[in-house]
């Protein structure tokens, strides 16, 4: 028995690793998943896209949609990066800033999608022995998110370089760019809670500092290398049937035709009659198939979104979104500056990102009466929705906050005509964290898709 300890020492896997290996996992999985979600369900809930087969999501036949598990299972990597970046000997403020930014991003998504979630007691199974963490309310979580991002801004400002492989698939360890990302996220989340809280000072301070994403070059994007299924555009590795289930939605078609928008041709294919045709969301299976047969709705662009492994990118936040945030903030008087200028720049950045590079073409587009800014928040939000194509669920969060642009439930929806505002908690929480789950359900007014969160019920506007 003398050699038992040696026999039982694990030769297969390490007990400790360096930050770059975890950063590679966290950055790639988070960005990829966010965009994969945005491409399918995010675009559907904002009605840019609708399913012609298996249309349950558009009928609001919802469960937990899998994102709970995704975020809580990637957060340990993020936490480990943070711990390593703060440990003597492996200290690195850039990794620390990356981890803080990613932690904020994950928890913001969790609370925006599910409302109350475990936060203050989350992820401390090992350190504190808590395996059934309590759920925190959305306000508490947002306080934490904003604090993390402010701290990220502070540590990233040190600009400490990372030597060797960074593992960072977004910015390859560039601290200044991560700082811009952190501040852009701060702008996003401050605006999100602005119905509940006066955020003007904080937003203005960030704008004044100017360390946020202002050009497409600074975008937090992931370009797939396409060397394997893993690092390829996810849809390109699936069955053609999965791709073919997605069509242009009538609502999105209406926006894009109203604006005479070149992005229609970039994102969608014409049908056999050479036309762009949409399909409404919220049809049931039979009706969706019947509609599909009768009208032949347009598919998504097959070259861009199916056949190419590398052309479509994944992203967290792009310059266009930041300008639309600023436009709305200016319009509402949270920050100084001209809303129209921000609005126009938001459109310009989005057009350029999607390949409309000719400024003259964009100028002509902006000059159209249907596009030209007139102070209407609805117009602003409609353009923002288009700019949020493929950006996880940000368009839906904006809709839930502002009600703009107005969205109607489809004819065969299973939610009595109501537009849903959250996903359900995963059933595993019922069995594994039952007491806290019940308390949370009680506190949010029921584990159903209509229980509104804190930031969408504010009354400041």
């Amino acid at each position: 028995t003398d050699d038992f300890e040696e026999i039982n020492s694990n030769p297969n896997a390490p007990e400790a690793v360096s930050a770059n290996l975890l950063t590679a996992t966290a950055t790639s999985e988070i960005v990829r998943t966010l965009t994969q979600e945005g491409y399918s369900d995010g675009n559907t809930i904002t009605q840019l896209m609708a399913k012609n087969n298996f249309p349950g999501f558009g009928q609001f036949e919802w469960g937990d949609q899998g994102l709970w598990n995704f975020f809580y299972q990637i957060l340990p990597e993020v936490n480990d990066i943070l711990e390593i970046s703060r440990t003597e000997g492996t200290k690195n403020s850039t990794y620390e800033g990356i981890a803080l930014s990613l932690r904020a991003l994950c928890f913001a998504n969790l609370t925006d999608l599910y409302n109350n979630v475990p936060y203050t007691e989350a992820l401390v199974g090992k350190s504190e022995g808590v395996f059934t963490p309590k759920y925190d309310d959305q306000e508490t979580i947002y306080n934490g998110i904003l604090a993390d991002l402010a701290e990220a801004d502070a540590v990233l400002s040190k600009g400490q370089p990372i030597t060797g492989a960074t593992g960072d698939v977004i910015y390859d360890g560039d601290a200044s760019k991560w700082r811009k990302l952190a501040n852009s996220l701060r702008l996003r989340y401050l605006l999100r809670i602005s119905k509940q809280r006066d955020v003007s000072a904080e937003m203005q301070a960030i704008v004044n500092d100017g360390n946020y994403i202002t050009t497409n070059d600074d975008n937090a994007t992931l370009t797939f290398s396409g060397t394997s299924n893993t690092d390829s555009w996810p849809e390109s590795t699936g069955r053609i049937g999965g791709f073919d289930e997605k069509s242009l939605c009538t609502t999105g078609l209406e926006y894009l035709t109203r604006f005479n928008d070149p992005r229609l041709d970039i994102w969608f294919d014409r049908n056999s009659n050479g036309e762009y045709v949409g399909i409404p969301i919220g049809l049931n299976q039979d009706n969706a198939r019947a509609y599909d047969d009768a009208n032949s709705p347009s598919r998504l662009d097959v070259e861009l979104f199916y056949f190419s492994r590398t052309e479509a990118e994944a992203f967290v936040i792009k310059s266009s979104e930041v300008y639309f945030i600023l436009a709305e903030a200016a319009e509402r008087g949270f920050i100084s500056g001209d809303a129209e200028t921000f609005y126009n720049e938001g459109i310009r950045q989005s057009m350029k990102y999607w390949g409309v590079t000719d400024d003259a073409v964009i100028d002509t587009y902006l000059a159209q009466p249907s596009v030209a800014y007139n102070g209407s928040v609805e117009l602003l939000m409609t353009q923002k929705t288009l700019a949020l194509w493929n950006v996880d669920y940000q368009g839906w969060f904006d809709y839930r906050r502002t009600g703009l642009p107005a969205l109607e439930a489809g004819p065969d929806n299973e939610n009595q005509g109501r537009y849903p505002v959250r996903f359900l908690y995963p059933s595993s929480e019922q069995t594994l964290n039952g007491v806290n789950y019940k308390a949370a359900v009680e506190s949010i007014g029921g584990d159903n898709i209509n229980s509104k969160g804190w930031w969408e019920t504010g009354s400041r506007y």
Partner: protein
Amino acid sequence: QTNFTGTVLDENNMPLPGASLVIKGSATGVAADFDGNFSIELPQGNEILVVSYLGYIPSEFNTSGKTTATIVLQPNSEQLDEVVVTALGIKREAKKLAYSVQKVSGDDLSEAKETNVVNSLSGKLAGVQVTGGNSGVGSSSQIIIRGESSLNPSPNANSPLFVVDGIPINNSVNSRGSENNMEVDYGNGAQDINPDDIETMNVLKGPSATALYGSRGANGVILITTKSGKNKKGLGVSYTNNTTFESILTFPEYQYEYGQGSNGQFAFGDGGQNRSITGGVNDHVDESWGPALNGQLIAQHDSPTTSGLLAGDVHVRPRNADGTFSDEIIATPFLSRPGNIKSFFETGHTISNNIALTGGNEFGNFRLSFTDLKSEGIVPNTDYNRRSYALNGSYQLAEWFKISGSMNYINSNSGNRPVNSYGTENIMYLWVWFGQQVDMNSLRNYWQPGLEGVQQYNYNYNYHDNPYFNVYENTNSFDKDRVITNMRADIKLAKGLDFMFRTGFDYADEVDMRKRAYSTQRFPKGQYREDYIYSFEQNTDFLLGYNTTFHEDFDLAVSFGGNNRTFKSSYQRITANSLSIPGIYNFGNTAEPLTSSDYDDKKEVNSLYAFANLGFKDYLFLDVTGRNDWSSTLPLENSSYFYPSAGLSLILSDMFNLPQSVSFAKLRAGWASVGNDTDPYNLLPTYGFGTTFNGFSRVNSPSELKLPELKPERTNSFEIGTDLRFFGSRLGLDIAVYRSITENQIISLPVSNTSGYNQRVINAGKVQNEGLEITVNATPVKTKNFAWNTNINFTSNRGEISELTDGLDFYQIKENYLIVGAEVGEKMGDLYGTGFVEVTDANSPHFGQWIINQDTGLPSRDSELRNLGNYNPDFMVGLQNSFRYKNLNLGVLFDWRQGGVYHSRTVSIGGTTGLLDFTTEGRESGIVAEGVINTGTEENPVYVENTINVPASSYYATVYNRSNEETTMYDATYVKLREVKLGYNFPKKLFDRSPITSASISFVGRNLALWTENPHVDPETISFSGGTVVPGVEDMALPSTRSYGINLNIEF
């Protein structure tokens, strides 16, 4: 004094070496030699010899007037002195044991042969539950003795230990690689054992019987003794052929009235790849809600085109610049095709040939055996083959020194094993999503012309693979070499003092290869993967035993022994996720970086043990054992653990004068406490390797929190039983009642992932199993020419979770659609899932009815988990009858399982897709869902009968919705006609002038008939999920089969 010589033979005229011959009324006697020969001096007037041999009826032989004789002993069918093999391979008289040992003889296994020997135990033994796998010949079988006691989700956690000739062997279930829908069952370890080489199987149930195996015996032990050349003189040759055919026993009942499509509409365009360009009506839909199959003309995948191709040749048909086809499809009749799907299947067959040579002389003996088994499954191009080479021998080097050993080499392989579980790779999946107009024959040529090897031909291109393409091109092969061997020396140190030393190992080396062709749905550029699995376990043990008799009435046997167990295994997987050149399956042909994974483990356990058997007057027997293990997998401070056992056996019929009708009566009681260790590396969490991403290496944080202070598990058990025989043992009754409590279980507890971990290893849980086992043996008729034997065994077990851990009252053991959960105070095997919103007010006349959503006219799913029943049976009964008339014998075995439930995924999906027979109801008229509508408020409901008529497709899509498991829960009760054997022993005189010594033929059938609730699938089912076996779920199981055939045996 006269000298008397003779030979003692058994009923087959084989010598009985060592048979004892004692002069009646004296202590004088001799033992027969190896050939059964003896010579004895008889004193005058003493002419009676008492001849005895263990397991045979003692006989008195009158020598008067003779100087030589052949004495034939008859086996003791009453088995009062039956000898059974107990723990550590020690042979003991059954009557002395404080527990029951059940024995299955090799003949029982090899006649109506199961390729997987575990299946042969089904229905034959009380307390033993066998569930056969669902992927044809070569599938894993699960065996559970006295209920599940472990909360560990591993498929092997509740498996008994298998021991071959004293050497523990690996019985782990091998189902790796669930990713990309490639869940393949490569069988359980014990199925490598060749039934032709088995002399006996002894089943030790419960810790009292298995305490000497300690850690590993908690779930029971199956001791397999292989055949030897013992008791054989000269050379003997035997030849056995077993040829059986397998045909479908249960098959989903499909509808044949409606074809592919939706809303009654269908026309083939391009099979669903891009219908916004190529037209087609609902041809992307892989369901059968299409037009009625009335022979009307509709464009179909196998309709010809004006370009001379088939419509389905979409990659070679001529196209215009805009992507539309330039040829036209010539519509063909839309026809009903009853039996279409079934026509894909073939009659399977299994041919097994065994030849065995035995021989021996007074010093030694040997047996050499070779068996070749070839089997082809009911799924085309699937097979299972096994070659077994067995050598067994012993040699008496000196009177005090004997050596023996055995070696089994087994090669098993398959060119293709069917894929299990849900997903495109399983052919059963292809037929819960299907167009019922599709003619199976139209899919036989599965390449598009000119694109052979590159692009398959199919009826649908957006979700599915052609089933023939699936089974002929996308194969899952394996090739496994296994050696099980032991060497043993027995030394007589002094009178009554014996020493045994033994070492042996079980070595297995396996390569699995998965090939995926170009154009496979999940692998458009093909794939090639190899898995290497190696395992090696060596056990070395010794035993020192001393026997003595004192004070006349006392027999004492004490033993002391030790064991070293060394286990190593490794697993390696390499995958080329896409191929440069189609059809070349070589890693050099990879089109992208190879991915791989690798795992090695090692474990060592040292043990010391001692035991004593004390007998008084041959009617009171006391057994005491103690064993201590030291395991490398536990923390050093907890690595040593001790477990004792004690048992008492009382032969009442020898103690007291019982009525004559009672031939034998015994009471027994046993108590044992055993410990258990864990898997290697369960003490510290580690990071996992991920695939590279954009050139960066990736790792994952540990998802399982380990426990550095792990303690060994503990099982305490108590059992009492009785063995009663009446009327000259014509009627026998064996009853056992037991209770076992397993606590401090080492389990990987699923925890809320919000804690940062998915699982944590803890010591927790207390599971109590209680059960009753009854075996009745009767011989109602016994005459010279006719005999009828009947055996009924009854098994009932309840496992209850009495404790988990502080603050935890529910534990999710495993999940496959349904959650197998352990709730404090509830039973083991409870299944949790979801159902529809129902009226929950017990006082309402509508209590339990669905509440229909008045907008949709359909019930709505309630996301709250509910208990949907338990997968364990209430009880099981095996009924075995055998009849003998002269040389003819007939055996019939029924297997009855009562109670328990299971979820049928086949019915769930086949219901939503309009494939199964019941979905024709309401297709024309629509359906009104049974249920009520709440016209009041939520607080004050007013229920009225639902009257909303909805289209059948919507109705079935909602009611059979796969995430709502309650609709497709079925009663798992069944009765199976498990086995029928009709045999004939050719009379010996037929072979008087030939070298043949005996010959027999039998007609055998297994699983011939089934009676159960759900007509679509076999309720004897287990599913695989991520390498874990999940009972209570039928997940796209292959049809179960019946088999029938001939067994021929000739001996020379």
